[in-house]
């Protein structure tokens, strides 16, 4: 075998990144569940023989990606390397070993090259329904939450495990869809290992050991170097959020020392009796994601890049749930963790981290037609929508945009083509962002009803309905979210609730918080938001001190020194 030089190693590294991206595209193109095929709720990666992740698709979402980084090692504990067959594929949905809840199924496929096992490909996707109470937070333990599949062989030397497929279909409300999604995962895993072997053949390599070492060490070193540029110290932050029926405190202590970052979530709330608990792998996934965004965004995500982050939470904490705690909606808490991390990092790199944002997806799992005698079209569908992100230190937050999640929002015409739903409105929500020198991103207004006027259930798992995103450096809080029926009844942030036939549901997603003093906001930007109807006249008066002339234009003289004062004039662009 040739001794590789660094340039060749980098060329092969790029090839691996292309392979995992191809895996992700294959999964999206063959998947059935809309939140996978339309929204990209998936991940795909390549691992070395020790189970270390060396490449991961950019397409995908952090909750999957970073949990996946850990998970292949669980499979290695289960099957011996010497017993693996080139046509095997292993599977689990164990929340503690895969991606934090039972709906996420993970596949691992051994990759052989020149008859030798050289590594693994892995992929995860979200199955729409796996029985139990359904996809919501109301279960009292994980066994209520649906079918629990320990690590098994999905393909045994190329033979599909028909027993498993039959059990899976029998346990789902959408058997056709989940079967198709398992096929999609198989296509994804197979395409990855085929390409990996072709890649090694092209470069005349027997294995990926040297390459793996290079990728991991280069990434680890790069990450360490970035951390060493930061001042060492211990930084604390806490954030109170809605929880299920009582508020949840998320408390972090972040220590930067010796080229590493350690986050300890001691002091956070205890386990919830409902399914909003995070297994540590999932809490860790979003924590590491935030650290990477703020400190080392350019470094490709892999085992090496993740090594310099340490995440701890005491057992029994809401962020380190133990089996059999319910965890189905772990993302509603897990996705808030970046804001907790940013609150710590604001004390270190205030010029980088944003104000608080909506964070958790405002996804709306809806189900109808299953109750006895319902007579209406049966469906189980999940609409994916978002609020605004927090303002950045140099620019406004992003409106109706997913962060930290990487999934895509649903299009109205697609939603209506897969479920008996009509959306009457999906538009920016006026006055929802927190004011500031840079304002938060806007939330949106969504109005929907059942097209057959039938009852349906909403499995709410939302946050920031009672606790808004908080501003930084004088920036104001974002607007809280709201769920309301046309009857005027307000719905709770969490739990299964009925939307009676004929009623319309209005969803107001939260706004992101502002950054900096609103009185320093550039008058042109205020005028633009007024022109576009994103800000109302009353809001501009009360939050930005804008004074209007009789012809409706802004009286700049009387409106304070927006963008005119020294220091306020030049540092925006």
């Amino acid at each position: 075998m040739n001794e590789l030089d660094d340039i060749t190693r980098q060329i092969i590294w790029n090839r691996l990144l292309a392979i995992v991206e191809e895996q992700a595209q294959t999964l999206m193109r063959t998947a059935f569940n809309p939140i996978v095929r339309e929204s990209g709720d998936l991940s795909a990666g390549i691992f070395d023989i020790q189970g270390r992740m060396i490449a991961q698709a950019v397409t995908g979402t952090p909750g999957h990606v970073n949990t996946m980084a850990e998970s292949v090692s669980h499979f290695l504990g289960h099957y011996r390397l010497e017993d693996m067959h080139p046509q095997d594929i292993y599977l689990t949905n164990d929340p503690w070993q895969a991606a934090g809840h039972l709906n996420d199924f993970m596949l691992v496929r051994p990759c052989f090259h020149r008859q030798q096992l050289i590594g693994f490909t892995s992929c995860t996707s979200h199955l729409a329904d796996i029985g139990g109470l359904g996809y919501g937070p109301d279960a009292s333990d994980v066994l209520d939450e649906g079918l629990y599949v320990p690590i098994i062989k999905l393909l045994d030397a190329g033979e599909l495990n028909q027993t498993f497929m039959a059990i899976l279909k029998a346990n789902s409300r959408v058997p056709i869809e989940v079967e198709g999604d398992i096929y999609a995962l198989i296509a994804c895993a197979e395409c990855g290992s085929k390409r990996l072997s072709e890649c090694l053949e092209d470069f005349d390599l027997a294995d990926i050991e040297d390459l793996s070492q290079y990728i991991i060490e280069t990434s680890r070193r790069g990450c360490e170097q970035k951390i060493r540029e930061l001042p060492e110290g211990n930084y604390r932050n806490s954030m109170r959020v809605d929880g299920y029926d009582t508020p949840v405190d998320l408390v972090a202590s972040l220590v930067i020392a010796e080229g590493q970052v350690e986050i300890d979530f001691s002091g956070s709330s205890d386990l919830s009796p409902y399914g909003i608990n995070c297994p540590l792998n999932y809490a860790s996934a979003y924590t590491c994601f935030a650290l990477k965004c703020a400190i080392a965004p350019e470094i490709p995500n892999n085992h090496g890049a993740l090594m310099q982050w340490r995440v701890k939470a005491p057992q029994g904490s809401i962020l380190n749930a133990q089996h059999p705690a319910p965890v189905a909606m772990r993302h509603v808490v897990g996705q808030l963790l970046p804001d907790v991390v940013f609150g710590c990092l604001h004390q270190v790199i205030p010029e980088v981290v944003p104000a608080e944002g909506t964070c958790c997806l405002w996804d709306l799992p809806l189900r109808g037609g299953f109750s006895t005698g319902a007579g209406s079209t049966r469906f189980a569908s999940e609409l994916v929508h978002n609020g605004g992100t927090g303002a950045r230190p140099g620019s406004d937050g992003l409106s109706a945009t997913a962060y930290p999640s990487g999934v895509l929002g649903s299009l109205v015409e697609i939603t209506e083509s897969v479920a008996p739903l009509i959306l009457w409105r999906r538009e920016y929500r006026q006055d929802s962002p927190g004011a500031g020198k840079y304002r938060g991103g806007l939330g949106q207004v969504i109005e929907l009803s059942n097209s057959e006027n039938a009852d349906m259930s909403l499995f709410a798992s939302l946050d920031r309905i009672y606790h808004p995103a908080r501003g930084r450096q004088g920036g104001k809080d974002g607007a809280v979210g709201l769920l309301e029926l046309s009857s005027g009844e307000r719905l709770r942030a969490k739990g299964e609730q009925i939307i009676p036939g004929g009623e319309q549901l209005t969803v107001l997603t939260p706004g992101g918080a502002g950054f900096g003093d609103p009185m320093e906001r550039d008058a042109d930007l205020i005028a633009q938001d007024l022109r576009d109807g994103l800000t109302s006249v009353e809001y501009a008066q009360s939050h930005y001190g804008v004074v209007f002339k009789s012809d409706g234009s802004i009286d700049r003289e009387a409106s304070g020194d927006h963008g005119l004062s020294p220091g306020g004039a030049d540092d925006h662009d």
Partner: protein
Amino acid sequence: MDKLARNGAPIRLAVDVGGTFTDVVLDTGDKYFTSKIATTIDAPETAILEGVGIVLQKAGINPSQVTGFVHGTTLATNALIERKGARAALITTEGFRDSIEIAYESRYDQYDLALQKPDPLVPRYLRYTVSERVDVRGRVLRPLDTATVSQLVTGLQQNEIEAVAIGLLHSYANPEHERVLADMLRAAGVEAEISLSSEVCPEVREYERFMTTVCNAYVQPLMARYLRALKEALVAEGITCPLLLMTSGGGITTLDAAIRFPIRLVESGPSGGAVLASGIARQLGESKVLSYDMGGTTAKICLIDDYQPQNARNFEIARSARFHKGSGMPVRIPVVEMIEIGAGGGSIAHVDDLGRLNIGPESAGSTPGPCCYQKGGIRATVTDADLLLGKIDPDSFAEGRMQLDSSLAATALSRDIAAAMGVELVQAAAGVAGMVEENMANAARIHSVEHGANLSEYTMIAFGGAGPLHALQLAQKLNIGRIIVPRNSSVGSAVGFLWAPIAYEVVRSCYMTTQRFDAETANSLLADLQAEANEVVCRDAGQSNVEVKRSAYMRYVGQGHEIEVPLPEGELSAEDSAVIQSSYEFHYQRLFGRTIPQRDIEFLSWSVEVSGPRQVLENNSEVPETQTIRASTQRSAYCPGLKAMIDYPVYERDKLIPGNCLSGPALVLEAQTTTYIPDVYNMYIDNYLNLVIDRRDI
């Protein structure tokens, strides 16, 4: 329709206006005359007329003798990239004013906290709404509120709107409200151009449909003005033949259709390149071809099976963040399926924080250009690396009109790459070339996989200014054994225009499944689509003898992404459902490895393409009697196998004749480019004066 010229053969002009150069090709029936001059951005017709004048003079032809004129331009693309289009408004369904801005609620870069999304083409205050609602099956849930139209008219007039896009929800299923609204606006005196989403892009997914319609409206006034001005200027010069336009789909269309749907003119240059490669493939009987076109800023790769480029329906235009996928605007139009990446001669090389070598997508373009151009560029580019590797002759670049300075290239590469990575200069240059080739190879692999193609069975056709410099190394990475470098390779796209048929494709969504196959609805829809396409091709362009290609976009019920499946010819009957199903399964298996048992399959959209006769290209793949030739000169160039500089014999391309053959290493120089042939290849000149290069079995 062509007037016959001197010897009875048509005399045709093709003009490709690119961002940097305006290429003109004149086909007199027995010979091509070409010119390449700088594009005049503000008035593209100036350079066109100059270039046309040059080739007509070279050929001794009068303007009045010209019988055909085919034009492709980046003007529409550039207007979208540079935001220089019309003051446009959008009218949409009440409650959905922000669809084009909310889009997929996503970020194109997972880790960038400072990410900025592109501003919408139509700002929010110019996005109007009307009360109306149609459901997914085209049923009216709320009637169109015609009472508010007068308010709309006032708004449009007050804001001096030049172009209006109308995009209503589910209008692909029922276009009535859009049509009524447009009629009412016109009746109320609105003079702005009006684009309907049900005409521009009658397909499900409101974001893409509205964006395509908005993009169409945005470029429409500009393109209409420009095309009419060009037509007048040509007539004034005495060129009175019809002006035809190259489309993104690889066909040519009439002036009228182009003015109505100018969005279909984006990427017409690259699609011309794909047509060229298809034509050469046909001439040479190469049934599996990878077309590779590398210019100053980007490289385009396209697969051509059975002499036909692949078609697609999606294209992302004006990516704002360094070609980052998702940072541009999706348009849904028939396009030649290709992958375009930021890898060209001007692509800038740099070493990142991790010590990794990166190439592009940022480009030095033509100003300042690569360092060696001596026009002020100071960052190392791919061209600088190629020069240091000896692949380019600094004294004979651009027919000797431009002297290149190797020392400037060496300075930049030493500083930016060699020093940063701790390697020798020549290794740094080889690394830059190797990395740009790997980036292109990765793009080609992803593209081939999406189409289930095994590249080792393919032949590469390489052109564009930088294509022949990297073709052989790229081919090796892709395990491609034969590479063809066509004659006139640096103006390849314009040559392709001359070979393109008059063609028009129409796509429309209409839902059904194979289990409930409704042959009557399908036949009636296909007949409508065909009539629409016929109108352009037969009535406006006067073609008879048309070819019709029909296909359906299908998927398993519940999936989100369709694959294209060809439809049987003639009237469909109930039994055709099974035929279509097995055709679907065949294509699905080829793409994704295995089919899913006992599944219903759904039809999403239907497509009909009508095309006029293709240029009849003589097929002659015979290898001429070969004769080994000797080089007169030598120069030192890099040998990838030995990782060192060695002597390469140098040949001048325009002195080579059919049958001449040689073995690598060799450099074949022509006016705008060099074909770089490492030691493991043999080459001969075929009957069309193409370079045919084969890898030797080692």
